[in-house]
């Protein structure tokens, strides 16, 4: 049921450019108790189960982050994250106070509502390819700090419980090791378990992974990976910490290990599925009856919370060097209240800090704010960001008038910028498209003609002059975006010559299937150059080595075409497996091919034979 709903709505949302998060949410609302009623009470259980998706996501994020990187980010984590939390808490508390909540209630609400949704924010950012940009990094820093902050907040909440009598009666269903123990012991257990995770990651999990990997049973590896995550999640919740944080920690510890990519590709599908369920559950938990009964109240809170959060983030983003357009993305992406709020709210209810009435109201506000986020981001993209682009264009009208560049380069990362530099060094001007506004700004300062935005959008291509250009170089990172771009170009600008970057062989196949003629595998030339230098060092003449490499290159390109035609394009394989199988096929097809020394140029042997024959006859 859930899957069916997701399959129906997610592709639809993507087609409309709304992102899959919104698709899942809508799916959840539709099948939820208030529209079709397919899920009723069990929605709440589903939510708990699906929260595992968030845990897995943080594990994966941890895997991407080596400890060094994390250490380098400490300033934005503590500074940006800390300030966001404190300022938002204060502002929300003040406002809550003016709504006639008591001081302690206000403070609790402030803390709870200052949390943002890791799941929604990170999923949205990575879908838009913004994780590696300034926006993504800072958003991540804020979210990470919030995750860490959950620990002290959980510790503070009981202290704020004014109703002492009620507070003692609740602990029946939280099977928690730390409850009822003195403060110092609690701290000891908490730090002990964090240290335990780090130590286990180093000394226990890695050797175990090695043993499991040796069995060569893929399911074993997958189940072991799942076991690690589940184990950590259980341990962390036993000691009263956020299991997402624990998973993140374990991820960071394993980021240096040789099994990083293997773990990534194993966990990825589970994460995607559970996260999708999580979003559906959020959608389903939006209590429309309650909203109908208190529409005004919820609307006021919703607007207020999202405005305050956005404003605080906007101000902080300004101080932390985000350009205006990036700052808007940053602020709106984090403007909702996150899934931790559900946990904290129910905890606050147990502790009798908040009344059931308040908690109900807040759960509705949180859920609607999460549901609103994709819409807010969409509005930002369609209404606010284009204004900036226009404003910047108006500043330099000279660029626009006569000059029509024959070349468009999409993507100014390490691949595109070399092409751009070569052309520029030879006075060939090109128009650039890039999605990273830091780079866009730099390029504009350097006098390049640059457009900010998703290069697969037809309107952006049109304004970049795709109708009149002769060539477009597609040098962006993401294979999916590249394919999307190719489709757009084939449809709207069929006369444009496409020169396309390919990540690897598999990617090249997709491009060939898409009908691209000029495909450039990004590492083949470099690898061959290394091969040439190695041969040269071994004593093979440089010119010969180069000719051998060129012969090999031609052979390899031919082989690529051949293998492409016998490949089954519908077959689905995981990335890592795909790669290994591909290598196997390639290596097999290499066997027995006389690649080396195919030609007989400058070979005097036959001449010599003839000369000797002639001498014998004469």
């Amino acid at each position, binding site marked *: 049921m859930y899957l069916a709903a997701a399959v129906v709505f997610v592709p639809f949302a993507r087609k409309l450019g709304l992102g899959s998060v919104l698709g899942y949410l809508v799916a959840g609302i539709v099948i939820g108790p208030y529209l079709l009623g397919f899920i009723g009470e069990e929605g709440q259980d589903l939510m708990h189960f699906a929260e595992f998706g968030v845990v897995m996501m943080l594990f994966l994020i941890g895997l991407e982050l080596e400890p060094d990187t994390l250490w380098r980010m400490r300033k934005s984590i503590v500074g940006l994250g800390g300030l966001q939390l404190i300022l938002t808490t204060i502002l929300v508390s003040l406002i809550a106070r003016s709504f006639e909540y008591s001081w302690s209630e206000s403070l609790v609400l402030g803390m709870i509502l200052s949390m943002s949704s890791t799941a929604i924010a990170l999923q949205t950012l990575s879908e838009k390819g913004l994780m590696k940009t300034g926006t993504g990094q800072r958003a991540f820093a804020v979210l990470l700090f919030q995750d860490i902050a959950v620990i002290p907040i959980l510790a503070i909440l009981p202290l704020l419980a004014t109703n002492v009598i009620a507070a003692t009666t609740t602990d029946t269903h939280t099977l928690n090791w730390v409850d009822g123990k003195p403060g110092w012991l609690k701290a000891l257990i908490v730090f002990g378990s964090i240290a335990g995770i780090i130590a286990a990651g180093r000394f226990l999990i890695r050797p175990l992974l090695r043993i499991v990997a040796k069995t060569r049973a893929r399911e074993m590896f997958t189940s072991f990976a799942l076991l690690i995550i589940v184990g950590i999640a259980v341990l962390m919740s036993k000691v009263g910490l956020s299991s997402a944080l624990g998973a993140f920690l374990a991820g960071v510890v394993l980021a240096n290990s040789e099994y990083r990519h293997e773990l990534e590709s194993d966990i990825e599908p589970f994460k995607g599925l559970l996260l999708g369920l999580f979003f559906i559950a959020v959608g389903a938990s939006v209590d429309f009856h309650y909203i109908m009964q208190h529409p005004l109240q919820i609307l006021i809170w919703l607007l207020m919370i999202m405005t305050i959060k956005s404003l605080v983030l906007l101000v902080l983003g300004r101080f932390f060097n985000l350009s205006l357009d990036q700052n808007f993305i940053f602020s709106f992406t984090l403007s909702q209240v996150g899934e931790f709020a559900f946990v904290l709210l129910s905890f606050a209810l147990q502790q009798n800090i908040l009344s059931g009435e308040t908690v109900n109201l807040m759960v509705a506000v949180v859920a609607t704010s999460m549901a609103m986020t994709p819409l807010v981001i969409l509005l930002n993209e369609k209404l606010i960001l284009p204004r900036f682009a226009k404003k910047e264009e108006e500043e330099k009208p000279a660029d626009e008038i006569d000059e029509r560049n024959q070349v468009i380069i999409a993507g100014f990362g390490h691949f595109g910028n070399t092409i751009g530099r070569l052309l520029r060094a030879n006075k060939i001007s090109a128009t650039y498209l890039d999605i990273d506004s830091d780079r866009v700004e730099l390029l504009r300062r350097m006098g390049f003609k640059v457009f900010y935005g998703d290069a697969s959008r037809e309107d952006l291509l049109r304004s970049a002059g795709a109708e009149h250009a002769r060539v477009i170089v597609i040098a962006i990172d993401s294979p999916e975006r590249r394919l999307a771009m190719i489709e757009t170009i084939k449809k709207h600008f069929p006369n444009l010559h496409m020169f396309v970057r390919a990540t690897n062989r598999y990617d090249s196949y997709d491009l060939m299937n898409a009908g691209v003629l000029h495909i450039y595998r990004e590492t083949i030339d470099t690898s061959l150059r290394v091969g040439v230098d190695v041969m040269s060092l071994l004593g093979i003449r440089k010119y*010969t080595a180069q000719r051998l490499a060129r012969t090999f290159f031609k052979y390899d390109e031919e082989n690529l075409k051949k293998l492409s035609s016998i490949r089954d394009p519908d077959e689905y394989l995981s990335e890592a497996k795909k790669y290994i199988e591909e290598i196997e096929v390639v290596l097999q097809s290499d066997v027995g091919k006389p690649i080396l020394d195919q030609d007989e140029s400058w070979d005097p042997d036959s001449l010599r034979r003839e000369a000797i024959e002639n001498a014998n006859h004469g």
Partner: protein
Amino acid sequence: MNGLNQPKKMNKILILFAHPALEKSRSQRVLLKSAEKLEGVTINDLYESYPDFDVDIHREQKLLSDHDIIVWQHPLYWYSGPALLKQWMDLVLEHGWAYGKDGRALKGKRVFNAFSSGGGKDAYAASGMQHCTISQVLMPFQRTAELCRMAYLPPFWVQGTHRLDTQELNEYGRLYRKLLIGLRDDYYSAGEIEPVDCLNDLFTKN
């Protein structure tokens, strides 16, 4: 034969060596080896320095300026040198530097071909199989030298390479080394060099 005991000066010799597939050439390997580790002799291996044909003009011009005697050492391909040697000439011998009104950088230097060919002396004659002499074949090199105001010396010629055995090849190597040392030390007078068809004859006649 002057200066036998005390050479007047030591000439610096630059060998511009061009072979696209040295691993396949017995004769050129022997010649190159014979020229190695000789004081005053610089070997400039063109195919090894410029496998992509991207000749460094400034480096080459500096090398030429720093030497007195230039040797084009190469196999004879289609009545000429290998492609990179031609590329070298096209790029390095610039107008205004090597030739033309102000092009005097090479003036007075001596230059010759040290080459190997499949055919022998009997083939390279008006009545022979090739219907022309070897000096006619080498005319483009000679004219190049003369246009650059250099003195063009007779060639050093490894003949009939396909039929040579190891011993004969090594003998060519020995002579080549002897020739380079002699030219370096000004052992041969202009009067001795001028009348010979090939520099090889300096040894056979004495």
